[in-house]
């Protein structure tokens, strides 16, 4: 890896010190051409010299997410500049998304294994989406959840013996279709009467004997959502 110029933007002196130390000890190729604790300082530095990499803390002083704006501006002005964002906002997932949209090449969470040499190397090699381990752990946790949910859906189809018509029926019920309307769908070769039977049948499948009394269409749909049979985020009506 060639030598490169770095500007560290960090408002907390102790943390700045820590980061400087990491760079110094682990990434000798890095040449810290300046540090800034605030937005004004940073842009002053930028006027003087342009770094190859900017290690940017999201929060600077009272402006807790000013980094997002800075990142956006940097990316606009310097398309090739590598930007690695530091953040202590280990729970603020939305902010991470904002940061990545703003053009950051990676996010380093200020927890666990902080900045590693590898992270810097990867960024400098032009890799995007460089995340440190704690960040990846969190992303994985989220990913696992989604995958588990999808699996739960598949399991539910098997366990409750849901066929495509059941799914379609439930999905349209959820969309507020009446049984007459559902019976009118091209891909629903059933009469209203048989749909009513289907509903009773579904109720029997999705609810235990004790739970069945008083179950109406709404309860049935809610149950289907709870069991991941239908996905409330993908409720789309079939073409008529």
């Amino acid at each position, binding site marked *: 890896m060639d030598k490169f110029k770095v500007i560290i933007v960090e408002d907390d002196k102790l*943390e700045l010190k*820590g980061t400087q130390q990491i760079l110094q000890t682990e990434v000798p190729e890095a040449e810290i051409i300046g540090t800034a604790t605030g937005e004004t300082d940073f842009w002053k530095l930028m006027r003087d010299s342009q770094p190859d990499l900017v290690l940017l803390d999201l929060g600077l*002083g009272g402006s807790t*997410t000013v980094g997002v704006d800075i990142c956006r501006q940097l990316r606009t002005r310097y398309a090739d500049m590598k930007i690695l964002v530091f953040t202590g906002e280990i729970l603020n997932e939305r*902010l991470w998304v904002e940061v990545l949209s703003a053009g950051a090449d990676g996010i380093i969470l*200020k927890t666990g*294994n902080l900045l590693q040499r590898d992270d810097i190397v990867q960024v400098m090699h032009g890799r995007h989406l460089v995340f440190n381990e704690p960040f990846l752990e969190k992303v994985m946790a989220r990913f696992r959840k989604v995958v588990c949910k999808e699996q739960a859906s598949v399991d539910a189809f098997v366990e409750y013996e849901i066929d495509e018509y059941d799914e379609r029926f439930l999905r349209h019920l959820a969309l507020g279709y009446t049984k007459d309307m559902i019976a009118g769908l091209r891909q629903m070769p059933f009469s209203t009467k048989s749909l009513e039977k289907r509903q009773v049948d579904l109720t029997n499948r999705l609810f235990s004997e004790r739970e069945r009394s008083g179950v109406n269409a709404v309860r049935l749909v809610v149950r289907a959502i709870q069991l991941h049979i239908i996905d409330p985020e993908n409720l789309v009506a079939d073409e008529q």
Partner: protein
Amino acid sequence: MKAQATLLLIIALFIACSSVDDRNAMVVSENNDLAYRLRYTDISASLQAAKKAYSSSSENPDGKAEALNNMAYVAYQQMRYDQALHLLQHVYGFSRNQLELLCADVLTMKVMQRIGRGKSFFDARLRAQKRLSRILSEEDNLTERQKHRLHYALTELHIVASTYYYYLGQDSAAISEIQEAAQHVNLETDTTQWLYYHYMLGSGGLIDGTPEEVTITEFNHLFRVYTLAKANHFTYFEANALQSLSAIVADSVRANWVKQQRIDAYSYLFGEHLRWQSDSTLSLRHQFAAALSHHSIALFKQYHDLFQTACAMRTLGEVYFTAEHYDEALKSFRKALHLASDFRRSPYQVTPWLAGIHENLSLTYSALGDKLSADNHRNVYLDLLDESRQNKELDSRKALLKQEAKGERIQFFLLLSLVFLIVVLSILYYRQLKRRSLSFEKQVREIASSEDCKQAEHQLQKLLQDSEERLDESREESEVVQQRILNEQKRHVLQRTKLSVVYAIIPYLDRVIAEVKKLDEMGENVSERLSYIQELCSGMMTINDRLTSWIQMQQGKLSLQVSRFPLKDIFEVISMQQYAFAQQQLTLEVPETDLLVKADKALTLFMVNTLVDNARKFTPAGGNVTILADSIDDFVEISVCDTGVGLSQEDVQTLNDSKVYDPNRIGMKNASKGFGFGIMNCKGIINSYKKLSSLFNVCDFGVESQEGQGSRFWFRLPRVLPLLFFFVFNFFAHATPQRCYELFDSTYNANVQGRYVDAWLYADSAINMVEEPVDTVLLVSLYNEQAIAAQALAEWDAYRESNAECVRLHRFFSSDHSLASDCQQLEKMNDDSHVLYVLIVLSLIASLALFYRVVLRHRLRHRASLDDLYQRLTCVLRSFPENAETLVDELKNISHNLDQPQLRQPVLELRKKFASSLVMLQETNGFIEDIDEKTQKQRFELDRLYVMNQILDNSLSTIKHETMYFPSRIKQLTDDMQQNGIDTSTHQTLLDLVTYYRHIYMLLYEQAQRQTDQSLLRLQPLAVTDLLAYASTTYGVATQPTEAWVKGDEILLHLLLDQMFAVVPKDSALIVEEHDSMTYIICSVSGETLTSEQLSDLFSPQTERMEYLVMRQIVREHDAACGHPGLRLAAENTDAGYKISFSLPAIHKSMNS
């Protein structure tokens, strides 16, 4: 002895008296019996006996009546009819004895028949019949003597009636009557009546059959009467029988039949009367007949019966007439007429009989050729006939009808009066109705000034007042709540700020951990790293110090909202979760309790709710969760018990004893994660009570559980002691052929001119042309003219035939043609008047009905509707204010359904009167409702915020207490390392410590984090001017006008400004700038600058003033809410001093919009 004698004397006198009475009664009845028996034998003796009976009957009204009847009978026989009637009137006057009254009636009939007063005859007959039916109904109660008397009366009644009809020529009626009499005649019980009956049968006209049979039968009856009467000295019947026999003997045909068939009796009679034959000029048969008459006359004279003597004389005359000894006949007739009229001892004449004698005279004179006398007598005869015509019954009926009509006129008059009265009453009633209606109407018109209305108005005013007061109260309350919410919101921001400070340690801590881990890598920079770790620890300690001092600074303000409240309030809210429980097939049992506790209501609700939520989560379907509230000593123990999975002993111990623990590790495996957070908060709350005052020393919290069996979580709070015609007239048109009248005229003229044969022929032809019912008068006249012609021609048979027909028709109709029609008319009138009554009554009913239907009903309805209206109005007014909400609608309904349009106005006015006030009241109540509802929501919000803040307090406090020690400990360890070098164990100890520190710290932070709610931020477009105005009015800050608009939360921005001016001088100026779609509000402070140290740490956790951190928190939250546009908050030195600026998302909105 003397007393005994007196007693005996009294008894003797009593017996004597009673025996005198009895004897008198006996004398009376004996004499009466005697008078009755002697009636047809010796009339004088009968009279004497009757008088004797009468004189002894002063004490015996029945006997007296009988005596008077007997005396009257004698008077009748002696032709003293007025006297007889007088005596009978006397009987009617005093007697109540129906039997004697019946006898009197019968005798009256006899008298009336004799004197030809048909009307009176019928009157008496009617009376008798009525009486008879009454007596017969009680026949069983009669004594033998009375029965005897009844039989007499009955027989006499029918015989008299029969006689009457006989003389009137109504043979069939006469026969029917005599047959009736036959039923009551008995030879053994009453010989006289038996004789009377048989005499009647013998006297002629009452027997059916061929003339020969009739003659023989009559003869037989008469002969039997004669022989029996003679043997028993019943002179009267003996004479009568002889008289009738004489008439039979005088008739050659009849006499021959008798001679042929009853030669024995005929011979006997003939022999018997040889000595009575005086006139030898006559044939033997005529001599015999005259002898019989003479004997009869002699007997009647002996018997002192003038009338019968005259009758016998007439019979003698008829004998002579048949013998054509007209002079002798004339002598006899004149003698008879003389006897009957000379002896007019009463104003009454025996009219029918006189008519007969005049006819005899007319015929005799005619025979003698004295046409003038004959005509005279014929005229008298016709006149008398007229008098005694047979329409007597009708006459009587007419009078009765007239009387009835008179009575009915009275009734009619009464009816009319009644009608009038009803009409008058109706009018009066109508007027009264009208008056009442008017008074109701007036009441309705004046409803607005009625007492009820005033009362209602008063009530309304009071309600309005109350309502306004309540509105004010509600507003105040709402303001209070709002203010408290504001406070809690601000407090929450502060809490979040504190939490952000807490969080600020995490990056340091992570760096420490990273550094510590790197210490393991042997090599250079150890000392550097250690000192860096120490620096980081110092940083953490600084942050901790700041937080601690801040928390301590606010501790004084920290207070629980302690109040006394019924647990019921809490349980009611909790029981609303029953549906959620039922969804999971769980039962939630909430007790009824009236216990009162002293605690923080919101927190208590939070605690119960937390425990119930936990119980619900960890109890499988079918189980139940029970809340209990037990009063023990001076506290109330509230328990939430479940039949859930339960907790291990270990967990129970942890929950009960540890201050800090990992909630995620509590409970059964993975199924019951997160169990402990709520429990921890509850414990924290209980602890804060304890810290507040010694009153809360009884507060405690505990868990009891048995794995698989369920748990009981309880806490204790201090207990407080406790409160609606017509008439048809028939017009009869008579159309008699003109030819008949012409023939009648010819007949009459022929008679006058002595052309009797022509007259007879004319009459005969005319008669054949006339139909009887059509013109009876003409027919009678024709028969009369024919009779006159026959009489003149001495054609006696033809005469008799014509005369009989004339008399018959005459009797029925001619002379009193009007009577029948009068009767008819009267009857019709009576019928009509009955019809009239009915019609009057019907028309009265109809008119009343019409009156009711047309007027009264309307009036009544009107009145009723007015009454109803008034009642409704009053009711509406009286039920005020219960019907406050519906009053206007009710009045509107009333005015819409009003039957009287003229009353709409007052109702509308009344409505108007209330409407505006009621609308106001409703509006006010609506406001109150809205405000109260809003307040209710706010209260809920407030409680939520309050509870969050309270728990955050507890959490922060816990964090402070539980983690404060770590940084210094780390520092201490690194110090040791610095001095003594690093070995594996010390390194590991440091790593463990740091790791544990981070773990516990994150745990507590997350626990606290759960209690924050950033969604509280309500972004809205705000005019920057308003923000500046806030600052300028509150802090006197100089501002510039601006048209900028931003997006933000007003409350928080106000708080931001509050914080800002808490740290900057009040003479600062606020400037607004706008660039990069952001609006910057810049506070420029002149005169002083900030050091670079201050500038770099100003918004960091190490800052001296927490206000900067609060400002940072507010900007940060706005940034998050706006999607991270990178809002700024910065401070920098300027030429004149320094400025603090913050940015907000600018929105382009004109001031006008």
